[in-house]
């Protein structure tokens, strides 16, 4: 009954979404405000409808309705309630409902707040957001129905297809069939039970769906011909929040990998990771290049292209992880949703590009570059580098599929390819982070830049020489540390210069001057905080990638392994049942540095009997200098050999996590709404000067 309600309501939501699209198009074509308003209200109805369906699904999960196939696949009786709720996005069908639910929430937010200020955009924003929601709802309704149930025939046997797979459907597949209710479910994949993994997918999805909003406004701008920067000003904060969510998702995913996967690293250049990184790359390029349009009226065509690419990559990322194409092209061909996704991406991408080509002449810049060292030129170079990283990532993910199609041979594109290809590109981006903040909009010369940067360069060189004598002679590390030092010094210098200027001009004390400086231009100084945090993260990434050491050995009780100045003594091991139905094998090891006892660590293996899966949870000792990371690789109760441990010393890696926290703070700082939200735009409009009601930027 509850499953029927859930499915029925989501089917209605799908119809409402389609109506919303149709009414918005008809309303715009016939200039009928009534139809557009009807479309808006239909779109507002989507979120409550999908919420009802989601509530039904959660109810089924929490109350162990194993006759529902999705419930059977993702939970088991022994799972705690909070995990049963989060299992909503732990399986494919549920995650599509979750995607639609978030999408409808964001679409509602757009049309609830100050929606009547941009009436010309409204119908097309509704079309894009409702169409995207309708697509995901269609996947749920027609292909991946989380409410489908198992059935048994009159003979009491489970009804299955010719291959022996149980048939899942909303309605009885034969006369006198009744619901088949398994006694227990498969349970959630143990890897998805970690707190990091519980929050990580919602954050990624939030990032994905919120990038749909700027795309919707961009398409609205293209269709209506309003090609000034109005759409960018409206969506500026949406973009920043989208970037925040996506960044947060990536950071959480990295931390989860470090804590749970037990391989001593945080980023494996795995296609699923790259699928989430790709829209982040174009989103980051977009965040920089929109500033050029706002300040100089340039790169309108490029900004449109970037947001179209970001949207396409959002859908492509979901497609990659949901279609089965990463496993094999055969899995894709057999997958119900794979071809549907592929068609949707193709149609939306080609349609968007066609619109962009149609409006191309109207999107010419109002001014052009005057100097190769101007800030806009450097931002453009920054965009080139971000897109270059994207090219490497995209090709690395797509190539195995192409290889399989054309040669029948599956290949793996692993970390060596990505590291070698993206390393110089990231170095170029770091260099730009150091130089660009010192260049001016419009024009800069080598002389002015040189004068602004020379002190930081000299100081960074001194630091690098110091590191050469005290820490490393690795040339790649030294170049990278030089760039890190330079960016940090340039950024701090920018903070200091502004504060000092205020102290002098306004006679303020240092604290007040600093506070007001950053408060008056949060976007700029938030950006600097982000740059600083990126450099801290770079220190961590360099540390673990260039200086990680590891060893593995089997030792009896009271024996030890040594690595990087640490001695790890194996004290004992114990087995006991865990709180989540798992069997825990936990070792106790004591850690020494020389003769100094530093404490005990508890690496463990959690075995989930229902899923027949092991999880290796490391014991780690984080310091600013390094992270001692110990994995219990093997221990057999019957063996007299002792236990096998793998020990990593990951130098500087904790700067990555510190940087990540500051990074997220920096984005929130930059994106937080202004008290005077209705500010006058910074740059005069040359095209389509908005009327008095419309000049207020929703930034």
């Amino acid at each position: 009954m509850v499953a029927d309600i859930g499915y029925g309501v989501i089917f209605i939501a799908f119809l409402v979404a389609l109506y919303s699209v149709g009414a918005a198009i008809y309303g715009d074509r016939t200039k009928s405000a009534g139809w557009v308003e009807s479309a808006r209200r239909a779109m507002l109805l989507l979120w409550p409808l999908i919420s009802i369906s989601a509530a039904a699904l959660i109810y089924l999960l929490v109350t162990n309705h194993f006759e529902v196939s999705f419930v059977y696949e993702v939970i088991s009786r022994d799972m705690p309630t909070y995990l049963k709720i989060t299992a909503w996005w732990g399986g494919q069908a549920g995650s599509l409902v979750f995607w639609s639910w978030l999408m409808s929430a964001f679409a509602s937010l757009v049309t609830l707040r100050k929606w009547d200020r941009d009436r010309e955009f409204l119908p097309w924003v509704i079309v894009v957001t409702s169409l995207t929601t309708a697509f995901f709802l269609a996947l749920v309704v027609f292909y991946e129905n989380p409410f489908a149930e198992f059935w048994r025939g009159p003979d009491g046997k489970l009804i299955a297809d010719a291959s022996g797979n149980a048939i899942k459907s909303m309605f009885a597949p034969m006369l006198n069939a009744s619901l088949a209710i398994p006694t227990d479910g498969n349970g959630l994949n143990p890897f998805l039970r970690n707190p990091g993994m519980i929050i990580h997918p919602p954050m990624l999805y939030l990032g994905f769906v919120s990038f749909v909003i700027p795309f919707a406004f961009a398409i609205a701008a293209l269709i209506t011909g309003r090609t000034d920067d109005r759409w960018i000003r409206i969506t500026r904060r949406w973009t920043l929040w989208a970037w925040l969510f996506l960044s947060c998702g990536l950071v959480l995913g990295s931390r989860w990998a470090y804590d749970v996967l037990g391989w001593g690293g945080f980023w494996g250049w795995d296609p699923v990771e790259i699928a989430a990184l790709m829209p982040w790359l174009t989103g980051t390029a977009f965040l920089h290049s929109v500033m050029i349009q706002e300040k100089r009226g340039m790169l309108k065509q490029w900004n449109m292209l970037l947001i179209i690419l970001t949207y396409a990559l959002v859908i492509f990322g979901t497609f990659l992880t949901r279609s089965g194409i990463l496993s094999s092209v055969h899995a894709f061909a057999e997958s119900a949703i794979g071809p549907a996704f592929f068609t949707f991406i193709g149609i939306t991408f080609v349609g968007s590009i066609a619109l962009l080509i149609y409006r191309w002449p109207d999107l010419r810049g109002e001014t052009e570059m005057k100097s190769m060292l101007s800030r806009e030129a450097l931002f453009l170079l920054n965009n080139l580098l971000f897109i270059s990283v994207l090219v490497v990532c995209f090709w690395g993910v797509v190539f195995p599929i192409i290889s399989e199609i054309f040669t029948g041979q599956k290949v793996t594109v692993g970390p060596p390819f990505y590291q070698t290809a993206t390393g110089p590109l990231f170095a170029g981006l770091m260099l730009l982070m150091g130089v660009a903040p010192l260049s001016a909009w419009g024009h800069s010369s080598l002389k002015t830049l040189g004068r602004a940067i020379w002190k930081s360069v000299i100081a960074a060189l001194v630091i690098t020489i110091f590191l050469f004598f005290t820490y490393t002679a690795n040339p790649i590390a030294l170049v990278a540390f030089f760039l890190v030092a330079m960016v940090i010094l340039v950024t701090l210098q920018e903070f200091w210069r502004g504060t000092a200027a205020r102290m002098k001009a306004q006679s303020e004390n240092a604290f007040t001057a600093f506070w007001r400086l950053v408060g008056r231009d949060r976007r700029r100084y938030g950006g600097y905080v982000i740059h600083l945090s990126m450099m801290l993260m770079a220190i961590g990434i360099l540390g673990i990638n260039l200086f990680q050491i590891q060893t593995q050995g089997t030792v009896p009780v009271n024996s030890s392994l040594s690595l990087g100045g640490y001695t790890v003594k194996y004290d004992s091991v114990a087995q006991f049942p865990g709180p989540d139905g798992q069997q825990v094998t936990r070792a106790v090891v004591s850690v020494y540095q020389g003769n100094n006892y530093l404490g005990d660590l508890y690496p463990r293996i959690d075995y989930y009997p229902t899923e027949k899966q092991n999880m290796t949870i490391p014991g780690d000792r984080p310091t600013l200098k390094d992270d001692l990371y110990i994995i219990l690789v093997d221990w057999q109760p019957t063996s007299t050999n002792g236990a096998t441990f793998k020990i990593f010393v990951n130098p500087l890696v904790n700067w990555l996590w510190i940087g990540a926290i500051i990074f997220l703070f920096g984005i929130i700082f930059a994106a937080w709404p202004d008290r005077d939200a209705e500010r006058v735009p910074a740059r005069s409009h040359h095209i389509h000067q908005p009327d008095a009601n419309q000049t207020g930027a929703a930034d």
Partner: protein
Amino acid sequence: MSKMQNSKTQGRKTQNAIALPILLALTCGLVLASQPYQKVFAQQPVPTPSDDQVNQIAHQLYCPVCEDTHLDVCPTEACRQWRDLIRQQLSQGWTEQQIKQYFVQQYGVRVLDEPPQTGLNWLIYILPPVIILAGAFILFRALRMWTKPGSASAASGSKDETVKDEYVARFEEELKKRK
């Protein structure tokens, strides 16, 4: 006036002269960096190989069964057996290349952490640098065209001086202070 123009032209030429090598260096770096990652290993026969020696080779191989998991960290029983096999092969004096070759023959090239440099696989190494170089060239040409002295765009740029926004003014002011 013409002297001033000459000096401006000279300045731009200097900037172009510097920007061009930077771009070229960056792109050359890219090409070099994108070259196939190749290591040559010479393995001595090891009577009792340590876990570290086994892992060093296993890390360069992917689990033939699991998705995107290196063989050295894969927790499955099958992978444990494959690691034991590597240990056995090392103790029999197999070289690293021979061991990798054995896994390729048994399970296909997908066990390698990057495609071998043959046939269609060359595309993985060639295409990104070509696209990036093309992008860099287009960008450089566009920048040169935009910043060419006396061009229409430069003229429109100078016209734009009248509509400078407060940000530009502020940055210029800051730069003046730095002088």
